[in-house]
């Protein structure tokens, strides 16, 4: 199993050290190569200078042999060179301080015009640099080889390489330590954030992680975590509120059922009395069932996995059918619900969800409007939106309450609402069902002048879809 340090700081330092080692090795390689090329160029230059001197020392005798004016060169006996005739006969050889001999001239060397250089490895790993080529001395063609030992050059290269080799671990150690402390310093905010995050629980969800530098990456991370905490806090508060409200709402019908039952059991009454008691219990049970259904509906909505079943349908007949469905409730209060507006509008939406929304709005309109009043459901379409407006002639909603009425369990008049059988969830359900389809609900109301709830769907999202667009 490969070694993987669990600590990010150690991992980063190791990567840093590895990368630096690689860079330093490449640098060392390039440096050594450059030093080698430079030293070799110097060696070639020295051989060239040797040739300049040697050329003036060579004398060709009339019989074709070669003589050298040794006395003209104070360093003559330190030079290593060979003079050959072009037919391969060695005419002169100078081998100071060495018993080493060069291999015979190859055909390739013979064919070389002018001067060339090459490095050779002799016996016992002796390395030499050779300048060789054909030259013409006083009209006679000669082949000359000048030799310099490369040992000094290689010693210098070795010394340089050793220097690099010793410097490398020191440089890596210093860089590693530097990298470690740098990483530690850079990652310190992460430790602080982790420490703080460990201390945050449901009791102190309002606390936030420290943001040391808001413009760097870690600052961004801290800000993102804080935003997440804020969302969690809001969600948690909402959940607590919802649980509390739900418990309260459930307790009311349950208490009512218990009270009715207890009163019924206290006295001996006739059958009709008990029928009334059972009827009241069933009424409370129905209310309880509606409340539980609403809670289940919202619970499903909160799971955020719900996908609406969008399809195109004729809006006007749909509204008529929905009105027909709720008409008996209106008739109990001698109210009239009548559809209005454009009859040829096709809407793309989820009819089931839209019906749920419309029923909730109509249910509210029936409950909070006086008996014998009219409730209008108006369908309209302009360039941007398709709207369904439910207008009642109720008491209206005060302006300061209009934003809150869509919150769960919110009631303007709690006692009156409960008396009317409301759970405080109708508008919350209506809002969710419309929003999940891409629409909105707004309210226009004034105390004493009734209310208008407007469901709007944008035309743009469905512009190119069949059955959607402006009607003529």
């Amino acid at each position: 199993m490969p070694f993987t340090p669990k600590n990010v700081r150690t991992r980063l330092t190791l990567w840093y050290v590895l990368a630096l080692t690689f860079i330093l090795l490449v640098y060392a390689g390039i440096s050594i190569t450059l030093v080698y090329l430079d030293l070799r160029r110097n060696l070639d230059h020295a051989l060239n200078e040797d040739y300049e001197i040697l050329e003036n020392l060579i004398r060709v005798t009339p019989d074709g042999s070669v003589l050298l004016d040794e006395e003209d060169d104070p360093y003559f006996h330190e030079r290593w060179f060979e003079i050959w005739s072009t037919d391969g006969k060695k005419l002169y050889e100078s081998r100071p301080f060495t018993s080493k001999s060069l291999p015979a001239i190859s055909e390739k060397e013979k064919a070389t015009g002018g001067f060339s250089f090459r490095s050779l490895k002799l016996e016992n790993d002796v390395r030499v640099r050779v300048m060789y080529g054909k030259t013409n001395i006083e009209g006679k063609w000669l082949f000359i080889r000048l030799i310099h030992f490369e040992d000094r050059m290689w010693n210098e290269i070795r010394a340089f390489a050793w220097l690099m080799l010793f410097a490398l671990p020191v440089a890596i150690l210093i860089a590693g330590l530097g990298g470690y402390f740098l990483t530690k310093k850079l990652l310190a905010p992460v430790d602080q954030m982790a420490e703080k995050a460990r201390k945050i629980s449901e009791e102190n969800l309002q606390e936030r992680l420290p943001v040391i530098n808001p413009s760097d990456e870690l600052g961004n991370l801290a800000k993102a975590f804080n935003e997440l905490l804020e969302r969690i806090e809001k969600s948690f508060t909402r959940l607590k509120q919802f649980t509390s409200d739900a418990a309260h709402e459930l307790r009311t019908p349950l208490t009512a059922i218990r009270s009715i039952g207890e009163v019924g059991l206290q006295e001996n009454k006739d059958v009709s009395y008990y029928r009334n008691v059972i009827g009241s219990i069933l009424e409370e049970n129905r209310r309880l069932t509606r409340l539980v259904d609403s809670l289940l509906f919202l619970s499903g909505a909160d799971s955020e996995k719900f996908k609406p079943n969008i399809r195109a349908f004729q809006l006007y007949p749909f509204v008529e059918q929905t009105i027909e469905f709720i008409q008996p409730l209106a008739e109990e209060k001698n109210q009239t619900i009548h559809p209005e507006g454009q009859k040829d509008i096709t809407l793309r939406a989820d009819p089931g969800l839209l019906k749920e929304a419309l029923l909730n709005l109509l249910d509210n309109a029936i409950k909070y409007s006086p008996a014998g009043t009219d409730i209008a459901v108006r369908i309209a379409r302009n360039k941007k939106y398709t709207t369904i407006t439910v207008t009642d002639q109720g008491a209206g909603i005060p302006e300061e309450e209009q934003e809150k009425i869509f919150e769960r369990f919110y009631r303007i008049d709690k006692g009156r609402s409960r008396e009317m059988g409301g759970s405080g969830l109708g508008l919350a359900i209506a809002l969710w069902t419309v929003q999940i389809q891409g629409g909105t609900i707004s309210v226009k109301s004034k105390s004493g002048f009734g209310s208008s709830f407007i469901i709007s769907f944008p035309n743009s999202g469905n512009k190119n879809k069949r059955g959607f667009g402006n009607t003529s």
Partner: protein
Amino acid sequence: MKAKKLFISGVFFLLCFWSGFGLYAQTKAPQKDGAIRLTFENLKTGTLPEGWKIEATNQKGPLATWQVIEDTTAPSGKKVLSLTKVNHSFGGTFNLCRTDQIRFLNGEIKVKFKANSGIEDQGGGVIWRAKDSDNYYISRYNPLENNFRIYYVKDGARRMLASARIKLPAHKWYELKITVQGDQMKGYLNGKELLQVKDHTFPEAGGVGLWTKADAETSFDDFEVVKRNSLR
């Protein structure tokens, strides 16, 4: 009166024509064998052949003075092209008088030269396949060092490719010739082949010109370029 004017105009026109033709003929006269030969005879003294320029490699200080001068010892005619004044004192300078109007790849370049003076250096030679003043081949004879050599100069740095030792006294005219075919080059002095070298540092065609080093003052005459097809 009118006839006299016409006669004078005619003579003037002919003079212009002949002088113009002569100038062209002496600078770049293509010979029957395809050679371009410069004898400098029809150039005014103090001038340079048309399209030629004075330059230097490793220049420190002013450029040398090159000009056409009269020389009674000239191998042909009376005029030669000569470096008459060095104008600088840097020993590493290569004095050039060259042209890019003659593009040379393969063939033969011939020149007669006479080493006039020089304490640090003497003699001179020809350059070919010159890309600029820092990149070219050169062949030269140095009567101080008694050697005849081919070098290349790359980015201003000179490297010896071939050398021959031959002793020729200064202040006399000699003929230097190089032949080039691809990467094969040969050097001749007074008709004798003394240098052979193979090199491919500059494989493309370039300009040609004349060369001296340091304080070497040298005269040149009968500069001739013969271009040959590289496939031959």
